Structures are given as C-alpha cells and as structure tokens.
C-alpha cells in the first residue's frame, strides 16, 4: 500500500490542480436562487400538466383529423375502412329473436285503425286478440283502460 502511495504521488500532486478550478465569481451566490426559481416554474408546469393530461385523449383525435384533412386519399381509405367495419359488424352480429304480436283494434267508431305492436314477455308468443279491449281484459298490458266518450 505504501508503495502504491509513492507510485501515485506525482499524480496526486497533479490532481491537486483540479481543486483550483473555480466557476466564475458570484456563481454560487446565484446558484440556489436559480434552483428555487426553477422549482417554482416546474411546480407551475406540473399544475398545467394536469390540464394537458386531461385534454390529451382529445389531442390525438385532433392530430388524426389534421392528418386526414391533408391527405384526401388516406381519408377515403379510412372512410371506406370504417364503413366496412360497420357493415361487417351488422352482417355478423347474431340475430336477436324479436317476437311481436299485432293487435288490431276494432274501432267501434270507425275513426282509425291502430295496429299495436308489443313484445311478449318471457319470449312467449301471445295469442292474437281480436280487440284491444280483449287484450286489456286479459291483463297482458298491465294497464287499466278507461272508457272515453269519443263523441264529445
């Protein structure tokens, strides 16, 4: 160890030169002020950064729109692709069973004929009623009918 110290004695003396390298006068008087000022600025930018983060999901949409606006061919391809996706979605979507019954109202007054559609509960097909009053009587609407005087 002692020989190591002797071997590097000249180097140690030369390295002493680095201790004399000093920044410009007054540099350290301003240093901490600059750090504190930058911390304040960073603090403010962090607060505004939240707003930017909040708006960021819409920023990519704006960018995409700008990109398409400048490239009509790309916009056409994009539109075609979107239409294709929608069409294939409609085509491949499973058909939902929709059972409807048409109830024809026998209008005793001859005012208007009203076909009434409703979906049968529990997927069960309902028997056709000849009159809406029959359906009401059976209680399939779950509603109460009131007699109306149409002549007034």
């Amino acid at each position, binding site marked *: 160890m002692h020989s190591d110290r002797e071997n590097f004695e000249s180097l140690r003396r030369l390295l002493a030169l*680095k201790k004399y390298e000093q920044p410009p006068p007054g540099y*350290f008087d301003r*240093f901490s002020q600059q750090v504190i000022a930058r911390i304040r600025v960073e603090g403010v930018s962090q607060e505004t950064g939240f707003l930017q983060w909040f708006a960021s999901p819409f920023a990519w949409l704006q960018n995409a729109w700008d990109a398409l606006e400048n490239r009509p061919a790309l916009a056409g391809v994009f539109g075609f692709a979107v239409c294709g996706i929608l069409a294939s979605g409609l085509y491949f979507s499973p058909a939902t069973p929709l059972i409807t019954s048409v109830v024809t109202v026998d209008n005793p007054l001859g005012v208007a004929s009203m076909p009434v559609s409703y979906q049968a509960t529990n997927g069960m097909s309902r028997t056709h009623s000849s009159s809406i009053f029959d359906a009401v009587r059976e209680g399939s609407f779950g509603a109460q009918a009131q007699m109306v005087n149409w002549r007034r």
Partner: protein
Amino acid sequence: MIMTEPANRKPRDERGTSGASEIPDPPQPDEATLIERARGGDLESYDSLVRRYQERIYATVYHMTANHEDASDLAQEAFIKAFQALKSFKGGSSFYTWVYRIAVNKTINFLKQRKNRNHLSLDDLDLNAEHDPDLVALISEKTPRREINLSELQEKLNTAMLKLSEPHRLVVTLHDVQGLSHEDIGKIMGCNIGTVRSRLFYARQQLQAHLSDYLK
C-alpha cells in the same frame, strides 16, 4: 479594503459596540429540521440545504463532465429532482449522500447520451494555484516539459480524465479531488469498499499512463 456597514444594521451604541453584535444570530436549524420543512414545501429551508451542498455537488459534476455549462445544468437538475423526491427520502443515509447519488446518476446518464462529444469548457484556475507548493514542485522540478503552463496542464489533465470510464472517473473525482472516504464513495456509487479501492487503483494507473509525459 474598506468595509461598508449594511444599511439595516443597528447603529453603534455609546460604548462603540455594534448593537447588532449583541443580538446573536438565530441558530441555524439542523439538517433534519430543514428537510422536514422543505418536505412541507418550504422553499426557504430548501434554499438553505442547497447552499450547504451546492459547491460539492457542482464540483463533482464539473469534474465528471469537464464542462461548466453542462455541470451547471446537471447540478441544478439534481437539486430540483431531489426536492421533488424529498417525500421518498427516508433518512437511511445522510441527505448529502442521497443528493450526491442523484447528481451522479444524472451525470452518468447524461454522459452516456453525450458519448463522443466531449467539448471542454473548463473553469478558470484560481490564482492561488500558482503558489501551491505541490504544483510548483511538479512544474519546476519533475516535469520534463518545463515550459508548460498551468492552463495547458489543466487541459491535459481534463482530457486524460475524460478518457477514463465514468465509474473510474467518478472514483478519482470523489477520492483524490474531493477527499471523500472509501466508505462514503461506496454509499454514493452503491458498491462495496473493495470495489472502490480496485477502481481507484485502476483509474490512477490509467491516468498515470495518459499523463506520463508530465509526471516523470
């Protein structure tokens, strides 16, 4: 040199003693108190912490980069990052070791990006360097190129330092320039004392080889 009295100092009393001198300066809060206050967002306390360690942190980064502007930016960024991460500082190590580690990591990352773009921007030498007995002896007696001046020697030394790898340059900087102990260097670099010693030995060997013309 004429010393002027600050305007806010109290006037001297009848006995000619300064009124201000009778009131002792308020005791400087200890480091733990300053850290606690800074954690709560007190920038004045953090300013005190920065002032304590700014010279050492700057010097370390400067000796690693050999560039004043880079060192200035990196040292400031290290203190800013330390402030932002102050809540995660558990106090397991001393504050200055912790800040050192932040500064060193930042510097090493920076140097990796800056590879092969070593532009020297050296600080001026203090006038006292000319009177340093070690340097005087080195130049006048042992250096074969006696015509070399201190500025040239400074440039050669910094160029040789930049030829070292970052861990080797760091260990020389912290030990031979800044005078830190092997133990502290191990804490800062995250390695054991044996590694610090071996790196130091290798780094010195390399430097000696690069600077052989000036060390015979």
